[in-house]
C-alpha cells in the first residue's frame, strides 16, 4: 500500500490586502494520517485548507508537502486532490468525463485513465452512474463522483472542504462511513474540514480544533473529548453538550475541592494541568454520561438532586437537574423509571471531569 505524503505548515500567515486571516500557524501532519480541522464558521479552517491546496497564497511562512517546499507551487504540482462542499462537478460532462478530464489534459494514456476511473468507480460504487450527467444524479451520488475525481489523481494528500455539509443527515452518516473505509483502504493522508464534531470524532486520527483563527487544541479524538484544553473545545465537542457549573476551588489539607452553593465535590484523582489557587473562580465541566445516579435513600450530603425533566432520546434518556445552581443534564439508560420530581443521589468521578479557569477558560 502506498503511503501518503506528510504535510508541514510552518509559521504561515494568510491575509487579503490589509486583513490578516491566519497568523503564525504551525501544523504538522504525519504520512497517512487523517486530520480534521474542526471549528465554527469564520475560524479559518477553510482558509488553511485552501492555502495547503495552493488556491490561496500565503503572506509569510512555508508549506511543505511530501518533503518538498510547495509554497510557490501550483495546486496541480503539489500532489494533492480536493473535494468541495458544492461538489464542483463540471455540469456538461458525464461522471466519467469529470473524473477523466484532468488526467486527459495531463497527457496520461487512455488505458491508464480507464483503469483509474474504473477502480475509483468500483471503490465508490458508482460504476452504473458513470455515463450520467451531474444534473441526473442525487446529491449523495454527485459527492461520490467528486470524490472519485479526487481519487483518480492518486495523490499523496486528499483535501476535503466540508464535503458532507450539503447532504441530509442520513446521507451524511452513510458517506462518513465510506470516507473512513476509503482512508483505511488507501492509507492516504487526508485533511478534512468540518464544523460537525461528530464527523471529526468518528473520522479523525487527530483533530485540530480551531476558533478565531487559532488552533485551540491538537490531539486525538480521545484527548479532545476527555481532556479538552479549554472551555471552548469542551463546549464545542460532545453531544449532548458538556455541563458547566461555576464555582470556587478550595484548597485544604485533604486536597482540592470544588464548591458551588450546596454542591461540593472532592477533586481526588483529578490530574491538574496547572497549579490551582485557593479561592480561584473556576468552572467545572461534566459530561452527561459521567454523572451517575444511585437510589435516593441514604444519599450522602451534598450529593442530592431533584430531577426536573426527562427527555427520551430513543437509545437512552436525558434527565435535567440542577447542580450548584446551574442546569445540568445527565444520561439515563432507556429503561430507567426515574420521573420528574424524583430525588436521586449523584456520584461523579473527579478524574473524568474538567476544570477551567472562569476568566481565561484554560484548563486547570
Amino acid at each position: 500500500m502506498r503511503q501518503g505524503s506528510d504535510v508541514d505548515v510552518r509559521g504561515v500567515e494568510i491575509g487579503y490586502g490589509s486583513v490578516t486571516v491566519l497568523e503564525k500557524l504551525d501544523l504538522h501532519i504525519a504520512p497517512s494520517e487523517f486530520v480534521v480541522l474542526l471549528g465554527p464558521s469564520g475560524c479559518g479552517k477553510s482558509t488553511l485548507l485552501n492555502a495547503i491546496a495552493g488556491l490561496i497564497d500565503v503572506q509569510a511562512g512555508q508549506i511543505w508537502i511530501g518533503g518538498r517546499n510547495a509554497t510557490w507551487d501550483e495546486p496541480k504540482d503539489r500532489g494533492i486532490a480536493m473535494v468541495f462542499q458544492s461538489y464542483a462537478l463540471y455540469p456538461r460532462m458525464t461522471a466519467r468525463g469529470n473524473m477523466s478530464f484532468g488526467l486527459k489534459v495531463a497527457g496520461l494514456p487512455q488505458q491508464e485513465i480507464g483503469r483509474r476511473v474504473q477502480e475509483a468507480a468500483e471503490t465508490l460504487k458508482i460504476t452504473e452512474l458513470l455515463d450520467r450527467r451531474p444534473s441526473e444524479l442525487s446529491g449523495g451520488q454527485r459527492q461520490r463522483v467528486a470524490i472519485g475525481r479526487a481519487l483518480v489523481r492518486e495523490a499523496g494528500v486528499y483535501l476535503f472542504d466540508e464535503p458532507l455539509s450539503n447532504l441530509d443527515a442520513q446521507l451524511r452518516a452513510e458517506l462518513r462511513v465510506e470516507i473512513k473505509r476509503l482512508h483505511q483502504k488507501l492509507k492516504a493522508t487526508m485533511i478534512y474540514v468540518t464544523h460537525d464534531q461528530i464527523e471529526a470524532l468518528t473520522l479523525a486520527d487527530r483533530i485540530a480544533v480551531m476558533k478565531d483563527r487559532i488552533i485551540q487544541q491538537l490531539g486525538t479524538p480521545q484527548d479532545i473529548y476527555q481532556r479538552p484544553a479549554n472551555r471552548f473545545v469542551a463546549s464545542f465537542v460532545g453531544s449532548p453538550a458538556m455541563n458547566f457549573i461555576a464555582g470556587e476551588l478550595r484548597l485544604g489539607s485533604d486536597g482540592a475541592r470544588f464548591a458551588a452553593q450546596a454542591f461540593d465535590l472532592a477533586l481526588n484523582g483529578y490530574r491538574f494541568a496547572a497549579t490551582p489557587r485557593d479561592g480561584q473562580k473556576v468552572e467545572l465541566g461534566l459530561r452527561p454520561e459521567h454523572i451517575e445516579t444511585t437510589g435516593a435513600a441514604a444519599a450522602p450530603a451534598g450529593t442530592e438532586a431533584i430531577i426536573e425533566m426527562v427527555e427520551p432520546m430513543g437509545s437512552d434518556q436525558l434527565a435535567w437537574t440542577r447542580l450548584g445552581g446551574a442546569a445540568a443534564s445527565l444520561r439515563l439508560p432507556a429503561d430507567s423509571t426515574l420521573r420528574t420530581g424524583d430525588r436521586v443521589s449523584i456520584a461523579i468521578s473527579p478524574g473524568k471531569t474538567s476544570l477551567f479557569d472562569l476568566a481565561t477558560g484554560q484548563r486547570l
Partner: protein
Amino acid sequence: MGSVAIEPQGRKPRHMTPARIGIYAFLVITALFFAVPLYVMIVTSLKTMDEIRLGQILSLPLHPSLDAWRKAWSSACTGLNCNGMQVGFLNSVKILIVSVPASILVGSVTGYALSFWRVRGATLLFGAMLVVAFIPYQLFIYPLVRVFSVIGINNSLIGIVVVHTIFGLPTMTLLFRNYFAALPTELFKAARVDGAGFLRVYWSIMMPMAMPILVVAMILQVTGIWNDFILGLVFAGRENLPMTVQLNNIVNTTQGERAYNVDMAATMLTALVPLIVYFGSGRWFVRGIAAGAVKG
C-alpha cells in the same frame, strides 16, 4: 527540484506571463476600437472645414472652436427651417417628459396586477406579451397611422406619446412583473389581511419597494425613447420631430458640400443625453440590460 536561489516562502512572486501581456494587448486594441469613433466625433466637431479637408481624421484640432456646435444648435437647416438642433432637442424632451412616466405607470400597474392577483386570462396576457415583443414595428405602422388619422392624433405630440406607451408596454410590464414576482408573497398577504385593496397595496407597499426597478425602467425608457428614430419619423409630425430624425435630415439631406464639423457637432448633441444617462447610471444600466434581456 532544481537549484533554487531563494527558498520559497511567503508570497509567491507574480510575473507577467506572455498570456497576461496578450490579454492586456487585446484589451488595449479593442479599447481603441471603441474609443476612437467618439474621439473622432469630438475632434472633428472642434475643427474648421479647412482643417478637415486636409484629411487628418485623427489629428487634434489646431485651433479648437465651438463654432460648429453653435451652428449645429441654433442655425443648422432642415429643409427650409434653419433653427438648428435645439428644435429637435426640445421636441425630444417634450416627448420624453410625457412618454416616460406614462409608459412606466401603465407598465408598473400591469406588471403588479399580473404578479400577485389572480385575474382570468392573466397568464395568457403575460404569455402574449412575451411573444409580441418580437414583432417588428413595420407590421403596425399602416393600421396605426390610419386609426390615428381618424381619431385626429396623427402627426401630433399625443400621437407619438401614445405610440411609445403602447410599444413600451410589453417590456415595462415584463420588467415590473418579474421584479414584483420575486418579492416575498408574505408582504402582499400581510397587506391584504390588513385590509388594503388593489390600489392601496400598489401605491403604499409595492411602489416604495420598487425603487431599484424604477431606476432601471427609467434608464431603459429614457434611452429607448430618446434614441428612437422610426416611430418619431412616422408619428410625430413635422413640428414635433425628435432630435434623431432631425439629425438625419440635417446630415444626409444637405446640398453642396457638407459641413462635417457641424454634422459631428449635431451628432454629439444628439448623443449627449443618452451618454450622460449612461455614464451617470453606472451599474444600473447593466442591470437594465440584464432585466430587459430576461424575457420571462
